[in-house]
């Protein structure tokens, strides 16, 4: 494993910026989970970590390993692809179950999704 000493200064600075930006975005998403008041608002918060948060950390990883191993490392792109394809499915299922529960409990101000249930 090549150590941090192999990393030139310019790359170290860029990697730090990417890591900090990505984790800051994820932290803001986590704060959003705390601060938002309803379930439907809260579902939006984690997408910060799943989009730009992931991009920041993955960009740092790609840069770090491309520089220290002296070849282009791109398989982090796959992580982004898989996260982007799978997170929406989870979020949609969560929201639809919440909507179903709330309607079953008699909150009539919520929109109807019965057209899908009886298909």
């Amino acid at each position, binding site marked *: 494993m090549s150590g941090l000493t192999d990393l030139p200064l310019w790359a170290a600075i860029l990697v730090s910026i990417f890591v900090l930006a990505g984790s800051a*975005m994820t932290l*803001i*998403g986590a*704060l*959003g989970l705390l*601060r*938002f008041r*309803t379930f*439907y*608002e809260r*579902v*939006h*918060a984690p*997408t*910060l970590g*799943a*989009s*730009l948060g992931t991009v920041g950390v993955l960009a740092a990883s790609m840069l770090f390993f491309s520089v220290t191993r002296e070849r282009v*490392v*791109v*398989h982090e*792109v*796959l992580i982004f692809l898989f996260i*982007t*394809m799978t*997170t*929406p499915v989870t*979020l*949609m299922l969560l*929201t*639809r179950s919440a*909507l179903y529960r709330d309607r079953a409990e008699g909150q009539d101000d*919520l*929109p109807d*999704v019965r*057209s*899908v249930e009886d298909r």
Partner: protein
Amino acid sequence: MMARVFAYPRLSVFVLIVWLTLNQSISPGQIIIGTALGLFAAVTLSALQQPGLRAGNPVAILRLVGFVGLEIVRSNIAVARIVLRPRAERRSGFLTIKLEIDDPYALTVLACILTATPGSLWVNYDPRTGLLLLHVLDLIDEAEWASIVAGYEARLKEIFR
């Protein structure tokens, strides 16, 4: 059986590329395993009897990817602002939009884009009426959301026609 093995050449090639990238190797052994996995994926997918995919125009696909990338950055910043702002007036809520596209693949891509973009969430689509139910975090202007969705639709129509 043979027809099913080669039913989805693009999918098979994609699985092969994913496999080689994951293993970071283009040795003959990995190529054989990746090809076998790709062909197996094609057989599995034909068992699901999906309608045929007519994706076209790689330029339009690249333009969509670029546009979505910019939108994701823009909406990340917008949602981060909402989180960090001290409790301000904000209205989140459900929104119904009439969709023009009805291709199942185009709808799938649209659902992933809208949900992966912070601030908007695909909740339900009714294929009989073509109505999409969306939940948005910042529901200031319904017409603006409708035009954002219409922008995606126009780009998707270029790809899936």
